[in-house]
């Protein structure tokens, strides 16, 4: 009985560790795609602060936003991007009011939340919104990261045109690193 319990615990621990590693790997790859998407986005209007603020609304620890931050100097031509991460929607809104966000990022969980208002407001201001899942595009998001199995797909919402930025043609097929 003890052996069975022990093996069950070991198996559970192994599965947990495996899923943690997989989540980290996926988050890291998403970060790479975000950096790639940002570097292929060209901004038309020069920011007053000469930098772009990327405001990420995330729910957990294994977010692509945290990995993106590690790269420090990420460019979305012609500006470098400064990263700000929030796990509270109100904090995000407050930061946006005070410092102004040009890029929004919503992770897998927050993309599924009721963010239509933020996204809609960003659209009105001609700002870039990046999210997760197919549904994010239906919420008028600009770029969505879609995870299917071991592949990641970067989809750009072609119907959304902004005067502030132009996204170069990206690779839209599923990518397996």
């Amino acid at each position, binding site marked *: 009985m003890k052996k069975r319990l022990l093996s069950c615990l070991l198996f559970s621990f192994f599965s947990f560790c495996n899923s943690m590693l997989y989540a980290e790997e996926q988050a890291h790859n998403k970060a*790479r795609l975000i*950096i*790639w998407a940002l*570097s292929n986005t060209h901004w038309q209007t020069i920011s007053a602060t000469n930098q772009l603020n990327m405001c990420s609304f995330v729910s957990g620890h294994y977010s692509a936003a945290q990995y993106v931050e*590690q790269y*420090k*100097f990420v*460019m979305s031509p*012609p500006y470098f991007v400064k990263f700000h991460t929030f796990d509270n929607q109100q904090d995000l809104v407050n930061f946006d009011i005070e410092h102004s966000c040009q890029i929004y990022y919503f992770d897998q969980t927050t993309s599924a939340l009721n963010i239509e208002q933020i996204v809609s407001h960003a659209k009105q201001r001609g700002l870039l919104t990046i999210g997760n899942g197919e549904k994010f595009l239906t919420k008028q998001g600009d770029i969505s990261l879609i995870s299917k199995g071991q592949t990641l797909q970067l989809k750009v919402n072609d119907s959304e045109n902004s005067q502030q930025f132009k996204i170069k043609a990206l690779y839209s097929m599923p*990518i397996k690193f």
Partner: protein
Amino acid sequence: MLNKIKIPVWIVITVLLICSTLTTYVAQQAIKHYSFSAWLDGRIKPAATPFAQQAQQHLSAPFHLFDAFSTLVVSVPNVSPEQLDFWVKQQITNTPEIMVASLAAYSTNNARLQHIYSAGTAEKYQQDSYQQTLLSMLHKSQQQQGVVSKRLDNTTLLLGKKVHLANAEWFFLSEIDLNLLKLPLIKAHPQTKLNFALQAFDKQKMQLINWHFGKLHTDKNQIQITLESSYFDITLSAEPTATFLPKWQAPEVSKLIGITILATLLLTLLLLLIWYQQRQQKVTSQLLQEQNHTIHQQLTSAKESIKRNSRFAIINDMAPIAAAEISPAVSQAIKAVSSLEERTINLKNKLTDGRVTKSLVGSYLDNATKLTRASSSQLLIAAEATYTLEQFASDLKQDTLRNINLQLHTAAITSIYKKSNQHKKVKFIENLPGDLEISAYSGSLTHAICVVLNNSIEHGFSGKPDGIVMIEAFKSKDKQSIQMRIEDNGNGIDDDTLNKIFATESIDTHSGLHLAQQIISDKLNGKIEVSSKLGRFTRVNLTLPITENKN
């Protein structure tokens, strides 16, 4: 020519068709191969080279950045972190291939690793959990000059470099995110319509990357491009994504193949016609052979019939002669016997009357003796004639092999001809030694001699009141054969006819000699020669082997 080869034409045609099919197939494969090679070199290489160059540029960029960073730090030792940040940003802004920068600089004076600056993901190597990796790279860079590289995992490549200048030492570290580096190539890949295997090795032949863009199937359809830089060597294997369908690059080759196939077909058709013609000829030849065989059989049968009829004709000729000889002899014998009978009756009557005298009896006995002798003589003549005829008939019918005295045999034949009223004006001169003996088919010998004699009498003396037939025979010098010559002083034979006697099967006036030739050659194993002078003579020489016939 085909008849000489002795190979059936259908085999030649089949081999030709197989050869032409194989040749066409091999030619097609060769053209496909060369066409494909040309296509690979002409199309794939130009399409793959930009991809290889792009890969080289993207992979070289972090190396160059790393080198430039180390040079900057070494050459400006007092540069501030803010200045370095600005410099790094400048590099990212001005270098399209660089999306991010991960750089770190350490001072290694007094064997202590002291952090100077770090940017990007290289910042984490200040953490304790990464110390071992950091020291490992430091150790590796101490062993080798220049930039050293090390793969940490599938996604991370570390670069290290140790610089010693004057009394100062630096260690530089850079972390390259390979997956991030791969993204522009993933994007560029579909446009090439090729599949790639991209490998990079540092100068120590350590593998830096091994990426696949699409799946490579076989080595056959690949081309390889190798690019070298001061940091690493790139090898790119490229293969077309779609199955290559051969497009004939050279219309001349297509024309050549077409002409070859057409020529082969025409040649095959020609051979088929020749084959058909030969077959028809063969059928016709077989038919003619069969007809010829039938005609030959009929001819042989006819010849045999002619021979048989000829023999019967001889018998038929001889029978009246014999009859003409027998009848008077028997008649004379009957007369003699009748006279004797009459005389005997008279003597008996006188004896009854008692008028018999001694002189009368003596006279009767003398007459009786004469009459008996005369009767016997005539009966003997009749018997001989009968015997001779019977012997001839038997010989001609049975044709048995027996020993023959040629003198007696010839005399018997000529005697019959002499007795014939028809031939009474022909004089026979015989000159044959008495010891000439031959073992032969008696009927055939008789037949041959009769035919030659008939030819002389019937044709040679035609229109002439009389003539001479001379028969001679003697042994040849080698004693193996007998030379027999039958010559007449008749009309002779003209040269044209003489030449045709043995050469033709046609029935002409001298066909008897041809028959004689057949008899002599077939049955007597001898030969016959005829010479003649028109209006003077005809000479027939017979060569009859002695031993051959005996055997």
